[in-house]
């Protein structure tokens, strides 16, 4: 069996999977993200972003610095869910209602 080379460790996305995504026409990092799940794991791209962008740039034959990394959704790090409601009583409007 060919040994898997992981780009995104959270969602088990391999280099081969990125190539396959590209082949099927998901060429933008945003599309690759939705198709493969890279960037969508609990690390939100901390481990994979640069490597995915680099691979995407190589496949598309463009300069990696021209590619915008997909949005990193809050929270930036895993947060115990109960905490999000902690400020609710004090009238903080972004606590979980």
């Amino acid at each position, binding site marked *: 069996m*060919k*040994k*898997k*080379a*992981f*780009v995104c*460790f*959270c*969602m*088990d*996305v391999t*280099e081969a*999977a*990125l190539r*396959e*995504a590209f082949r*099927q026409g998901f060429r933008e990092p945003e599309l690759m993200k939705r*198709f*493969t799940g890279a960037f969508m*794991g*609990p*690390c*939100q*791209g*901390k*481990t*994979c*972003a*640069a*490597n995915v*962008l*680099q691979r995407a*740039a190589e496949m598309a034959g463009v*300069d*990696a*610095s*021209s*590619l*915008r*990394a*997909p*949005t*990193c959704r*809050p*929270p*930036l*790090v*895993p*947060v*115990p869910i*109960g*905490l*999000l*409601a*902690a*400020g609710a*009583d*004090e009238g*903080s409007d*972004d606590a979980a209602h």
Partner: protein
Amino acid sequence: MRTFTKTPLAFTYDGRRVEGQDGDTVGSALHAAGVRIFSRSLQFHRPRGLFCVNGRCVSCAVRIDGHPHMRACTVRLESGMTVESEGGWPSMSFDVWRALDFFHFLFPPGFQYRFFIKPRWMFRIWERMLRQIAAHAAVPSPAEKHSSAPSYLKETADVVVVGGGAAGLAAASAACRQGLRVTLIDDNTDLGGGARRSPEALEDAAHEALALKTLTLHLDTRCFAYYGDGPVSAFRGNTLIEVTAKAVVIATGAYERPMIFGNNDLPGIFLSTGALRLLHRYGVRPGTHAVVAATTDDGIATAAALLDAGVHVEAVVDARMHGGAPSSQRLHERGIRILAGYRIEHARGLGRIRAVTVAPCDGHQTRAVHTLPCDVLVTCGGFQPANELCFQATSQGNFLMEGAGGWKSLAQGERQLAARDGTPLFVAGNAARIGSLAKARLEGRIAGLAAAAEIAGGGAALADELRRERAALAALAEPDRWEGESA
């Protein structure tokens, strides 16, 4: 295993008694106790162990005192803790679902969008099955839930600085000295960030910061959101901290990039920053026989650090044809084999790394392919800026890579942006652009001074100082030694 020992602390892991020591995290204690497989990966149930040792990669998720999916490397060890592994069937360490790895051809990328939706009625059944396989953590039982309600701290400051590395410290002390009230947030238990590798350079800055009267310090505190129209949100343990400020400095440093090669997820493979954290903070040797993979001089420094700590370094595999000379000369003199112009082809082992196969970078047929035995592989594949907070606050583009035309967006001009509600926002240090300690410090100082100028106006003296610091930054001949491309 340890390079230093402290008061022992006992806890249980999957029902068996394990001993760690004071100052450990759950992760470092388990690694020191010989645990290599911490978790199972989401799709293929591959074994995973400590990797970043910094709360970034989530491969060390375990259940701690009933709380599911905690990153073991971020939770401080306390005596009597109950730690359990998650996922896998019948157990995490012996997982039948591992077979999925060998049937991966059944799950091509995007399979979830195609395969399981037809026929429609089957989806319910598939869904239940997939949940069973992919759910690695059980919801806490009522008895296990937090007994105490989370607490809430609401603070105000003139400037909030996220990140207490060289850049953050410089920004905080510059702003404090301009008479501002500063709140500094860092997720480590001590100040210094990446610069802790050269403690001398840092001691002064940290001491100076601690002596500042107008500084509020939140250590061991993770900033998780700044939306640009409200407070900076962070948490420590069970406390939510929200800081509203007139200016924000983002100095969150960088994330290390993994290298990509076959089996690059085997337990025993570490990011260099992770291996060094394990060694320096907790006195835990990541292994006994190491191979170091380098693309920059970071690799040379990492190998030297491992060697100094009594880890046998089998070889340094350096992708550069010059093999890091002249810096690597010292290693060579210490009897370390330097494989210049080589890269890691794949790692070998089941459940943990046993060897790596290395091949010449340029595919030269004349040069041999080697297999090197090892129980730890440390990779130095370069860094990417940790700039998500800027992105969330401004909704501007998020560019991580340097190209022929330099860095996009964040690195241009004064590194000053504006949050969505107009709050001045500064980016300093590696978070703006990967570079040296000197650069991080200068940028930090500039951010602190500029924040003061924005908030309080400041006089001609401040404007002068800012001009001087900016000139110094412009004059800084930046070595590109710290920048690396992942192999």
